[in-house]
């Protein structure tokens, strides 16, 4: 993974596969306290304690197409290399919460990358799901909420390529005002 936006895409695919109808991503930055935090919350099927115990094992996966599952392991490794860590809470039938902490100033912390593209692709591929992306820095806060977008669009399909290109630009421009 080249940057955090690719990790985010990868982690949210887990929520998609867990049949979540709602996924919230929060990015919290605080330069003074040296915090760079990602929080993922979904209302998917959750995990049993046995699965949860194995989730950071790269040779554990719920897939049958291959025998390795590297998504969470790679993110955990990146977080630990950058003075942070990864924690997961999950309850079967309720959903999952995943928190990743980085040291903001650590030179090994991956850059955020193209987060607008990640969100746009997720929204386009899962138009029936709702996504919230909240980004907080010392400069301010931006919230992208697909429920608001759907209200504006009414009967027009959210996954129309013209709409998606616009959404990507909108997220990009708004994020650039706070980071």
């Amino acid at each position, binding site marked *: 993974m080249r940057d955090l936006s690719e990790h985010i*895409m990868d982690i949210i695919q887990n929520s998609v596969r867990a049949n979540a109808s709602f996924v919230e991503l929060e990015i919290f930055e605080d330069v003074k306290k040296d915090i760079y935090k990602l929080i993922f919350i979904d209302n998917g099927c959750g995990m049993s304690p046995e699965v949860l115990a194995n989730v950071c094992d790269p040779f554990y996966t719920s*897939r049958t197409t291959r025998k390795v*599952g590297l998504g969470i392991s790679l993110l955990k490794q990146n977080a630990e290399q950058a003075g942070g860590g990864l924690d997961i809470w999950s309850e079967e039938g309720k959903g999952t919460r995943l928190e990743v902490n980085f040291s903001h100033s650590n030179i090994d912390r991956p850059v955020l990358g193209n987060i607008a593209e990640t969100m*746009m692709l*997720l929204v386009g591929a*899962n138009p029936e799901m709702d996504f919230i992306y909240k980004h907080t820095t010392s400069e301010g806060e931006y919230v992208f909420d697909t429920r608001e977008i759907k209200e504006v669009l009414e009967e027009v399909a959210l996954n*129309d390529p013209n*709409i*998606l290109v616009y*959404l990507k630009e909108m997220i990009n421009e708004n994020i650039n005002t706070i980071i």
Partner: protein
Amino acid sequence: MAKVKSLADLKRMKEDLQSKMDLREKSNAPDSILQVKVGMATCGIASGAKEVMNFFIEESAKRGIAAVVTQTGCMGYCYAEPTIEVKMPGKDPIVFGDVDVKKADEIIEKYVKHGELVDGIIPVNYNTID
């Protein structure tokens, strides 16, 4: 400071779009338009699937191709990522492997527009050895 795009602008754009096209509700007739599925599991993302999917969305908007571009999981062809499945209306889906932006452009120009097959197809009966 330049004004940033907002939901109000989106509303204007939506009305613009509505007047231009005949309100095709894609979810109602997905079989009648081009469907592209991009393999977006860890293996795909690490090989650059994000860039490829973004290219398909931007180009179908630019070139005016009616398409639904969506994601799928890992099909077991991790060695050939990024992989994409292209389903033209009324035809069987075809899986292409090792798709970068250049290959994606070739697929749109040759296969989607003219029905010509291009290199890089993964045959459906192909199996990996355990």
